[in-house]
């Protein structure tokens, strides 16, 4: 099916993009999710502002022991950037499991977050890494944690006029390791549930979970419980992982043709337990 008609602006500066957004335009980044939903007439924006020419949104820089990724960083680039591989291996794992080569060549990290699919590989992984985003508008700029970006199913807290410009990955800490795992119907399909765990010096520093609620979650109760237990004790890790049910209470559970809420919770707890045991115990 064809999309409805729309006006198209190719922005040549961030200010031009912000001006168009302030007057009601919607951002077109990689377009890999947006154009699909437009073809299905699930979205019918009147005006698209294409930000692909904005080179300043493409920068990848070291920043305070961490990394700043411009919003236009393609998922394919995350698969090959040396700093991502060295500092944030879970992000690279999640990137490699996103869609396929052609889609990754277009899809961007900022677009992926703003589409707010609760099953996004990127969202849960960035939450586990305690990433933040910079959002600019006509009125200035602000920073918020990735976990605070999502307000509901395919919805963010951003308002019209806002442009997500950067993703900030903080210093991962000493002896950092992390991992991403998912359950999906087919290899590289959109996962039913996914879990990402970040670890530094043998302690869990962040847990992100996708596909469990209508928005991606940070598993704060599980994180907190794990700080008090011996992460080498499988039974203690089991008990902590089960607290995921409590973390889910902060949002509405996701239940659809891909999996019931009950199945998703059980699967996510199992993934979480396995990931914690693997990442905290493996050495070297």
């Amino acid at each position: 099916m064809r999309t409805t008609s729309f006006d198209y602006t190719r922005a040549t500066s961030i200010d031009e993009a912000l001006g168009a957004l302030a007057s009601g335009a919607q951002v077109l980044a990689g377009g890999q999710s947006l154009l699909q939903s437009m073809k299905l007439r699930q979205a019918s924006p009147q005006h698209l502002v294409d930000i692909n020419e904005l080179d300043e949104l493409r920068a990848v820089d070291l920043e305070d022991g961490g990394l700043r990724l411009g919003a236009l960083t393609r998922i394919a680039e995350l698969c090959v950037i040396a700093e991502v591989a060295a500092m944030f291996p879970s992000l690279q794992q999640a990137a490699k499991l996103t869609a396929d080569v052609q889609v990754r060549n277009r899809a961007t990290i900022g677009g992926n977050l703003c589409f707010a699919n609760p099953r996004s590989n990127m969202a849960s992984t960035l939450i586990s890494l305690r990433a933040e985003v910079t959002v600019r508008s006509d009125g200035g700029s602000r920073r918020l944690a990735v976990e605070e970006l999502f307000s509901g199913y395919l919805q963010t807290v951003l308002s019209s006029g806002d442009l997500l410009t950067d993703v900030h990955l903080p210093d991962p800490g000493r002896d950092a390791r992390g991992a991403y795992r998912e359950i999906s119907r087919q290899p590289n399909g959109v996962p039913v549930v996914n879990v990402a765990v970040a670890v530094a010096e043998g302690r869990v520093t962040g847990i992100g979970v996708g596909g469990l609620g209508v928005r991606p979650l940070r598993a704060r109760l599980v994180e907190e419980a794990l700080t008090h237990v011996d992460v080498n004790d499988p039974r203690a890790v089991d008990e902590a992982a089960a607290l995921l049910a409590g973390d889910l209470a902060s949002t509405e559970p996701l239940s659809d043709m891909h999996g019931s809420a009950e199945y998703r919770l059980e699967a996510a707890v199992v993934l979480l337990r396995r990931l914690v045991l693997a990442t905290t115990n493996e050495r070297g």
Partner: protein
Amino acid sequence: MTKIQLTVDGAKVSDDVEPRMLLVQYLREKLGKTGTVIGCDTSNCGACTVHLDGRSVKSCNVLAVQADGSEVTTIEGLAEGSVLHPVQEAFRECHALQCGFCTPGMIMQSVDLLKDNPDPSEEEIRVGIEGNLCRCTGYHNIVRAVQTAAAGKVSGDAEAGSPAATAETEKVEV
């Protein structure tokens, strides 16, 4: 309407297009390049794969206006005159098709894969073309063709290559 100027298969073209026109529609309907096919129109099957500024993309999921100023290569731009591209030749020699509908996309994606990784393992090939579906499930010979192209074992000699490859394939597939 929006004015676009781009290079397609080495030729400069310019047109006024509706912003909602997809790149694949532009290639097929405006330029008559029907070698690039529409399989699923949902960015799942990869049949419409072309190269946009040297990277493979699904042209049903890119707007024509987004290709303004870019260089597009389609399956029709791979051959040098009557001499097939080595990957095309390998697909022909290995009989890497059944119905042939996925072939343009498979070849374009395989060219992209070999550019990044000139000597891929079988698994790397299968992962590299995971965004391309063959509804005949004829992946075996497709993978073999990519391996053949990678090894530089394409004869490029239609007279010598074709009958032997066909005979071998028939033996396997009866």
